[in-house]
């Protein structure tokens, strides 16, 4: 069980050994602190215009330079971290919740419920995700809440398959049979006995999912269909980066690096969790 101290011990022992994953954890914590204390670590306000200093290259006053309206790019990148982390976590929260629920129901009840739900998963997998997201955004107006909801609702299918597979093997285990013999209700068996044991693989896809959601949000914002200016997001800073690429490389370089480092960190943590959970890799 996830609460089992033995499990924790083994897991942490394995995870701590993975220096890359630990460093990635450090980066994520750093990003969180940065976005939490954004007003205190940045020199300007994110939307403070300075029309005398537009498109200035990086300097001591403006570490990452300024954009076409004279706004400080460093400040905007730091505030962009808030948006990216928020989108990443809420979207993944939705996709994990939906995916886990569908997987639990399909795996536990089997039969008609299972085949109906899994066919629905197949159907959703047929749509080019990016097309589906764009189509829904066309209709719903691009706003940060819609984007989080749409990314979440179009990315739960993998989690559902994963959880279902776990549940299929768990529901025949002795402790589940014992709980049933004691007269526990379906809901209690599913949520108290099966769910905690099926969660560890979900942890991996959650971490990878945050990375994916951040990438999707930045692509949407870059195309102008995501987070709308003047709210800074890494994607929409890159939009002006594209417009001014001939004169201002710093507008393109830094937000992109921010995306790269963040996504890399979440992927490394995800892989680290996977390796620590995989008994085949333990020596």
């Amino acid at each position, binding site marked *: 069980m996830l609460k089992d101290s033995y499990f924790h011990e083994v897991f942490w022992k394995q995870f701590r050994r993975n220096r890359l994953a630990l460093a990635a954890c450090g980066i994520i914590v750093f990003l969180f602190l940065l976005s939490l204390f954004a007003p205190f670590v940045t020199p300007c306000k994110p939307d403070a215009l300075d029309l005398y200093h537009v498109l200035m290259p990086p300097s001591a006053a403006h570490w990452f330079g300024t954009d076409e309206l004279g706004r400080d790019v460093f400040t905007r990148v730091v505030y962009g971290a808030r948006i990216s982390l928020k989108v990443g976590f809420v979207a993944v929260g939705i996709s994990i919740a939906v995916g886990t629920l569908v997987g639990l129901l399909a795996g536990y009840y089997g039969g008609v419920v299972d085949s109906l739900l899994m*066919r629905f998963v197949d159907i959703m997998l*047929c749509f080019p995700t990016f097309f589906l997201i764009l189509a829904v955004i*066309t209709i719903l107006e691009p706003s940060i809440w819609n984007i989080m909801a749409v990314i979440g609702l179009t990315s739960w299918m993998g989690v559902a398959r994963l959880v279902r597979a776990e549940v299929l093997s768990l529901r025949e285990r002795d402790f589940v049979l014992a709980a049933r013999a004691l007269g526990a209700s379906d809901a209690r068996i599913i949520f108290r006995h099966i769910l905690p044991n099926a969660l560890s693989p979900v942890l991996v896809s959650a971490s990878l999912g945050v990375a994916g959601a951040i990438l999707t949000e930045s692509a949407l914002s870059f195309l102008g*269909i995501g987070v709308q200016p003047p709210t800074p997001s890494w994607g929409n800073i890159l939009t002006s980066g594209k417009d001014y690429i001939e004169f201002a490389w710093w507008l393109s370089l830094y937000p992109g690096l921010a995306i790269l480092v963040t996504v*890399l960190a979440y992927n490394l943590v995800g892989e680290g969790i996977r390796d620590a959970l995989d008994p085949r890799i333990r020596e």
Partner: protein
Amino acid sequence: MITYLLKRLVMLVPLLVGISLVTFTVIHLAPGEPVEMQTSLNPKISAAARERMREFYGLDKPLYVQYLSWLKRMAKLDFGRSFAPDGRPVIEKIRERIPVTLSLNVISLVLEMGLAIPIGVLAAVRRNSRLDRAITVFVFLGFAVPTFWLALLLMYLFGVQLGWLPVSGLHSLGSDRLGLLAWSWDLAKHLLLPVSIATFGSLAGMSRYMRATMLEVLNQDYITTARAKGLSERVVIWRHAFRNALLPLITLLGFSLPGLIGGSVIFETIFAIPGMGQLFYQGVMGRDYPLVMGILVIGAGLTLIGNLLADVGYALADPRIRHGRG
């Protein structure tokens, strides 16, 4: 083999129905009705005229009747007319864009396989070597790089700074007057950046997957047996392991199709390539609902066809399925 294929075809039917239901639902998420778009511009329109128009579009009928008539039109690939000023039928607009997107995707898919397979096999065979570690770093970077950002950087480097490559469109101005050779050279130069970026985008996942399946196969008993028989390492890897590791790749190919088609929105927009992705983007920006829904259905349909092809490929490659014992 034939029964297997027939079974797969029958299984397509519920999928098609499901796709149509999801699309229909997405359409009905839209606030307001198509009538609204035409009437709200005209303040003098009467309630009676509005009702007549609702009737004309069938909006007064119950939802399932609307769905069925919509489905009937879908089956004939009739997606209505675009809301764009040209007002052309949606299917016509899509049809002229599909070849560009498909051929771009096929080219990058071929390149991707050509690179990912050897990379993955090498990494697996020399597991934990310096080469494997270098490949792993490359793979992780590949996963994390936003493709549109990479496109921007390369555009800056090769297009702006070095001036070696054109950064938009498929042809230079006046390229239609060039000879075939010069014309092809021009096209190739335009394609180089978008194709390499599209390839790079999915290379990481593919080679990682290849490495994983190859490692799994190399741990099997029959590989140990082959080695114990004294076969050369080359024969063991390429004749015994490689062929079995290729099988799961076919399925992955089918699954990677929606990603590829979806990704075309990004790089076709950046490089101004007149494909389906760019058309879709224009549709989204112009709130051209019929066009957006048409492309959504076509995109899902292409994915279905891709998955079916992958299944056929799998059946052809795996004798267990080919002879009906799978």
